[in-house]
């Protein structure tokens, strides 16, 4: 009994959509923004305002320097994230992250460039321009909306069922053939919530002082984020593993037919994942990391590894392995439907 086949890194799927939406689209958006700005060349002052403080513009540069610095700089960033998704995007969440970020950042940069240059047309100097709060608000929300939209329409991972039982040395809960079982556990981090809420209060205070009311949506978004990221319900049942935020979304389901095995691990969030929340680590693991310590780690076909920091992970892992055993027993290795699908 070997699991060599299933743990080998799988082929990266959907490279076409990753390139079209994660590289071509953001570059087109950036080029369009730069093109519009360049077409205003003759109407714009020689030194345009590029930075605003609490009482008007306080940073200036030439149009060329602005376009090269921001637009070209952003294009480099876009190319880097696209390359990551193209070569390492085995999991849809990872492709969503890279592609959504690329579209969002490109939209933000293009919209900010156009939105802050537009009111400077016909001026003799950039310092004469007024505030640009509205342009910033529109750019932020446009970027968020487009980035999320693109992430949502990315194609799903193709099913790739596992045919071997979990390794012999991983623990199982003994289940009789007819027995039904479910394991449910809430995992939350009050520290994470307190920190995000504190940040929300600070942003709200800053926004209120500056009078840019449109940006009040930022603290509201932070509160929602803290609820969504720092409180999760983990469920193991006969269908596999489901991890969902207390808010309902985001939600992740690992179907039992793709699960190779489940084990218990210990994670150090900053060292292993560079932070807290929905994370991706450099070793290819993705998952929900909201505290250090006991962690459920589930390996799926194609070399995918998913983690969630939750108490009593040993019971969850043992139950998942038992369900995986039962699933493989119902469909003996060598005769699965997957070979039919592939032919």
């Amino acid at each position, binding site marked *: 009994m070997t699991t060599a086949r299933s743990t080998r890194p799988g082929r990266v799927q959907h490279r076409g959509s990753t390139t079209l939406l994660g590289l071509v689209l953001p570059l087109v958006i950036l080029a369009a923004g730069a093109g519009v700005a360049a077409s205003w060349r003759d109407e714009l002052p020689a030194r345009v305002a590029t930075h605003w403080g609490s009482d008007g513009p306080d940073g200036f540069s030439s149009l060329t320097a602005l376009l090269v610095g921001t637009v070209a700089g952003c294009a480099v960033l876009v190319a880097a994230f696209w390359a990551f998704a193209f070569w390492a995007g085995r999991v849809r969440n990872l492709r969503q992250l890279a592609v959504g970020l690329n579209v969002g950042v490109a939209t933000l940069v293009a919209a900010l460039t156009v939105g802050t240059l537009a009111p400077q047309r016909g001026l003799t100097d950039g310092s004469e321009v007024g505030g640009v709060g509205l342009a910033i608000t529109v750019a932020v929300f446009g970027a968020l909306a487009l980035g999320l939209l693109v992430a949502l329409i990315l194609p799903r991972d193709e099913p790739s069922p596992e045919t071997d039982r979990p390794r012999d040395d991983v623990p199982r809960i003994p289940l009789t053939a007819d027995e039904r*079982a*479910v394991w*449910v556990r*809430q995992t939350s981090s009050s520290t994470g919530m307190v920190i995000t809420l504190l940040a929300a209060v600070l942003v709200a205070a800053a926004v209120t002082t500056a009078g840019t009311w449109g940006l009040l949506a930022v603290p509201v978004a932070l509160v929602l984020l803290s609820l969504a990221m720092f409180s999760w319900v983990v*469920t193991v049942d006969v269908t596999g593993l489901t991890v969902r935020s207390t808010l309902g979304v985001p939600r992740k389901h690992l179907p039992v037919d793709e699960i190779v095995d489940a084990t218990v691990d210990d994670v150090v969030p900053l060292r292993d994942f560079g932070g807290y929340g929905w994370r991706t680590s450099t070793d290819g693991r993705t998952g929900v990391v909201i505290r250090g310590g006991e962690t459920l780690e589930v390996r799926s076909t194609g070399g995918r590894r998913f983690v969630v920091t939750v108490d009593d992970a040993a019971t969850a892992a043992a139950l998942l392995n038992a369900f995986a055993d039962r699933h493989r027993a119902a469909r003996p290795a060598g005769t699965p439907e997957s070979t039919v699908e592939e032919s």
Partner: protein
Amino acid sequence: MLFRIDPTASEPLFAQLATQVRLGVARGDLAVGERLPSARELATSLDLNVHTVLRAYQDLRDDGLIDLRRGRGAVVTERAGADFATLRDAVAAVAAESRALNLSPETTLALLKEALS
């Protein structure tokens, strides 16, 4: 919290489910204020009728182990948080003693049942 149901056992399904929660509380797996999964979720995961789960939850509420509130779901009560530590220690002591005496589990259970009747 792990819930296990055996449809082939003679005990009714709702009673099995209620027993699981009672055990969870006594073992300390379920803390005061902890929320049980919604009846609908539990019914889906265990392939049970939602009324079976609701019947188990109502039994537990009648025993004062959980509160059922609209919108909040089933929450483990203060009463359920009574200190079971002494009982757990005593059970562990009984298990150790009967093992030391090579007493069969059936005999030990029979003794316990007699003591409880």
